[in-house]
Every structure is written in structure tokens, then in C-alpha cells.
């Protein structure tokens, strides 16, 4: 990738970087400004307290979060179902993506389109029957139920991403491996997965993102227990709303995603690009 970029930047079309900075800087400021306000408020005491005047700088909002079992368990719940979702989605998506990439089989195009149809089905349309279905299996109020429901959109997205990555791997590699006596599972684990690690990272990032921010399923499937961050924040609204606390909670809800972006930052650029390349 770095090679591509250097040649890119050497081209006459990538020299006017100052001009581009002028274009990009206002946009980045526009993105960051609402969040700056959130961070600013999260360090303020927004309720009248005995020891701290309203508006003063304070850590109290963050301390309050860690003293509240509801809020800390909400953070844990969110991380659990997002993690579970990734663990369920990727092993199901990988063989399917491999099949779409390497084989033509009866109904493959229709099947792919129905996967896309699942991806574009609005959650709000399916909320009631999914609730009834999971209720009959006693899954309501569990993080597993949210993780399963989120497969509706995460599984098609992961298949789409992984299919492109696998298509970028030369077929000769499979054939050589099978001649060498590799079984299909062993080929997956020892050869294919190491080659498409960036693809798995990108798929995991998409799963994380869409699962972390989804609220329709997450709300309806947790009636009394297993509440995610988004719902815990909403329960903070009341007679005397502590905005500082809400803002602190919002800041904390951003941190896992930021860590993930930091770890997969190189793969994101490289990753989705392989997807684009293989489409040609």
C-alpha cells in the first residue's frame, strides 16, 4: 500500500496538498466540534453539588459511572454482545464467502441477492417477530439474543467483504494445497486465514461498528436485563437530568471503537481497497 501511495503522491494530481488541506480542515473541524462539546461537558459538574460549584472542572462524572453498577454493567453488556456477534458472524461468513468466490452453483446469484435483501431489511420491520421468536427460546434479556439478531445485517456485510478478499487470492494456491493433501478445514486455518487477515479485520470492524451503534434490536430484546450502553444512557434522563454524567458516558462509549480503529487503521485502507480491486 505504501508503495501505491508514494507513486500516487508523485503524480501531478497529488501535489496541491495545501489546497486540499483548506478543503479538508473545515470538514474535520465540523466532525469534531460536537464531540469537543461532549468532552468539555463531561468534565463539568452540571448538577448543584455541595463540594463543587456548577460549571467547575471535575472528574466526578467519570467517578460516578464507575460507582454505578447499572452503568458499568451496560458497558460490559455492549462489549459482550458485540464480541459475541463477531465470533458468530465471521466463522459463518468465511465458508460462504469462499463458496461465492470460487464456485458457481445452482442459484448462487439469487442467493447473493437475497443476502443483500437481508442487509437492506430495516430492523424496525422485523422487531416484533424476532422478539416473539427469541421469547419462545427464552433468549430475551440475554446479550446472545442481540448478537444473533445483529447477524441479520452483519453476516451479509462480512460475506461481501470477505468474498472480495478471497477473490484477490490466486486460485492456484487452493489447488496446490489440495494436491499437497490439505483438507478444506486445514486449508482454511493454515493457508487462507493468514492470507486474508486484513479482510477479517475489516469485516470485524464493520461488525463492531454496525452492532455497537444499533439501537432498535438492542432496546427491544432487553426488557429488564442485559441493557446496552445506549439504553443505559437513556435511563439517565429524568427529573433532575445530570448532563455531565450523560456526556461522560457518551465519551466512554466512543473509546472501544477508537481503540479498534487504531488497531485496524492500516487494514481499513488496504482492506476495502482489495474489495474494490477484485470487482474489476
Amino acid at each position, binding site marked *: 500500500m505504501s508503495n*501505491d*501511495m508514494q*507513486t*500516487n*503522491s508523485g503524480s501531478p*494530481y*497529488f501535489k496541491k*496538498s495545501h489546497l*486540499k488541506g483548506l*478543503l*479538508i480542515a473545515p470538514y*474535520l473541524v*465540523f*466532525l469534531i*466540534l460536537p464531540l469537543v*462539546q461532549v468532552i468539555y461537558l463531561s468534565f463539568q459538574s452540571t448538577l448543584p453539588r455541595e463540594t463543587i460549584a456548577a460549571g467547575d472542572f471535575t472528574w466526578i462524572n467519570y467517578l460516578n459511572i464507575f460507582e454505578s453498577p447499572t452503568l458499568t454493567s451496560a458497558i460490559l453488556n455492549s462489549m459482550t454482545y458485540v464480541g459475541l456477534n463477531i465470533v458468530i458472524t465471521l466463522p*459463518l*461468513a468465511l*465458508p460462504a464467502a469462499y*463458496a*461465492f468466490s*470460487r*464456485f*458457481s*452453483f445452482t442459484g*448462487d*446469484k439469487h442467493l447473493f*441477492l437475497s*443476502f*443483500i435483501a437481508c*442487509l437492506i*431489511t*430495516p430492523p424496525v*420491520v422485523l422487531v*416484533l*417477530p*424476532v422478539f416473539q*421468536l427469541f421469547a419462545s427460546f427464552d433468549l430475551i434479556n440475554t446479550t446472545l439474543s442481540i448478537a*444473533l*439478531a445483529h*447477524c441479520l445485517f452483519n453476516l451479509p456485510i462480512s*460475506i461481501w467483504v470477505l*468474498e*472480495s478478499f478471497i477473490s484477490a487470492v490466486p486460485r492456484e494456491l487452493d489447488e496446490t494445497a489440495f494436491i499437497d493433501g490439505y483438507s478444506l478445514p486445514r486449508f482454511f486455518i493454515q493457508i487462507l486465514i493468514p492470507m486474508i487477515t486484513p479482510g477479517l479485520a475489516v469485516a470485524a470492524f464493520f461488525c463492531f*461498528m454496525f452492532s*455497537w451503534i444499533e*439501537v432498535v434490536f438492542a432496546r427491544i430484546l432487553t426488557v429488564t436485563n442485559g441493557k446496552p450502553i445506549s439504553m443505559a*444512557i437513556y435511563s439517565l434522563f429524568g427529573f433532575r437530568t445530570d448532563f455531565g454524567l*450523560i456526556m461522560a458516558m457518551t465519551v466512554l*462509549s466512543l473509546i472501544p*471503537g*477508537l481503540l479498534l480503529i487504531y488497531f485496524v*487503521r492500516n487494514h481499513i*485502507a*488496504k482492506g*476495502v*481497497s*482489495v474489495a*474494490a*480491486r477484485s470487482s474489476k
Partner: protein
Amino acid sequence: MGKVADNKAWFLVLPAVLMLTIVGVIPLITVFNSSFFDIFTEQSRFWVGTEWYIEILRSSRFAASFGRSLLFSAIILMIEIPLGIAIALALPKKGIAVPISLVVVSLPLLVPWNIIPIIWTGFLHTESGFLGQFLAGLGVDFNWKFNPVHTWSALILMDVWHWTSLVVLLCYSSLTTITGPYYQAAAIDGASRWQVFRYIELPKLNRVLMMAFLLRFMDSFMIYTEAFRFNAGGPHNATMFLAVDLGEDIAAFNYGPAAARSVIYFVLILTVTWAFNTALTQKSQKFTPVSG
């Protein structure tokens, strides 16, 4: 690269098919089935045929919500897709600026949907919000609670803030695959910046743009959480979108009408997606869902 014809590949897709059947197909069939009944409880339900459909499709309320959602989606797509492409083209391609700008661009995508309206109502607050204070300083009486035009602008601004990044990330990663020789050849031929975009960069973006379009269309057409939490469909139903209507039916336990509404929405989305896909495929002959 040719593909091997082998129906045993079905065994590889079977686990994914089973999962999507459970969380997607079965619930969808249930919804379809319920839409023909008047449901009081699980046990007492009465066949009403297509009554709900006729009632919904004939109501002026549905037509109005449909128009609003369509307009909202059209505005969102017209702003976010070109803006996303422009930002992706302008993002730095090397150095320390790359990770920094990628992280900043991704930030809004990581905020849970129902927190977005909280952030923005705070941001627009005339006394404490940065943007609210700024607008008040300019002498603009920005009243998103009661002025429909202002509510719409705020919702659109909020959505642009939240989702343009998705288009940017998809386009950016696709653009980084274009290697130097393409640009050098274009420079030798004396191609203008526009020609480089039109004949080199845009064809590359075809597939990711399809994805961006699908995701953005579905989410903006079915906007619920943001619109409902922001102003609950107000003022005077000015932001009563399709999904907000549906949310009210569900909240009122009108299962039959809610199911009929869901089926109608699903068909609407499939139709628009299919139409767009067909138009794009015919125009470019490039997008095939299964690459090969």
C-alpha cells in the same frame, strides 16, 4: 478467473443461509402472515384479508409520510454521496496525517444512534451549545423545536455529520488502489482533473458507491431513532417519516396494521434498490454482485 461449477458449495453457504433464515426469513414470513389478521392476543386473531393494506395505502397520512421520507432520502443522498467522494479525494495519502484524519472521520460512525440527537440538541442549544451560540451571535433565530424548515435543516445536518464518513471511508480505500502509472499516463495525455476523475477514479468507485448508496438509502429512508428522539415527528408532523409512523403503530400494539406497514416498507425498499441496481448495471455493465 473462471469458477468451478460445483453444487457441493451449497454446504459451505448452508450455515450462513440457516442463520439468515432464523433472523431474517422466518420473521419476515411471520410479519407477512400477521398482516392479514386483526390481532388482539396470541390466541384471538381474526382474518381481515387485505383490509390493512387498503386502509394504509389509501390514507393521506401514508402518502404524506412517504413523500417526506422520499424527499429526505433524496436530499441525504444528493449531499452525502458527492461530499463523501470529494472528501475522499482530498484526504491525505501519506504520512502521519493519514491515521489522524481516518480516526477523526470514523468518529461519528461510532456514536450509538440514539445518542446523536442528545449531542446535537446540546450542540444547537442557544445558551450552552457551540453552534447554537454561534447562530445566535449571527442573529439567526434558530428554532428547531417549532420551525419545520429549521427542524429539517438540523436533521439533515445531523445525518450528514453522522454518515458522510461511511461514504468517505469506502471511497478512500477504493481510491488508494489506483496506482501511479494510471495518473502518469493521464498526465502524458494531457487529461484534465475532471477527465482523470471521470475516466480513472469514478469507474474504480463503482462498486463501493453501490454499497454506500444501498446502506445510506435504507437508513435514511427508514430514519427512526434520530428523528423520533430529536423532535418526535414534530412540529406539526413535519418530520413524521415512514418509520416514525410504524413506531407509533408498534407502540400502540396495533400488530396487524404494523405488520402490513412493515410489508409495504419492505417492498418499497426492495423496489427502489432493484430499480437502482438495474439502472446502474445497464449503464456501466460493470456491477455484478458475484465478482468473477
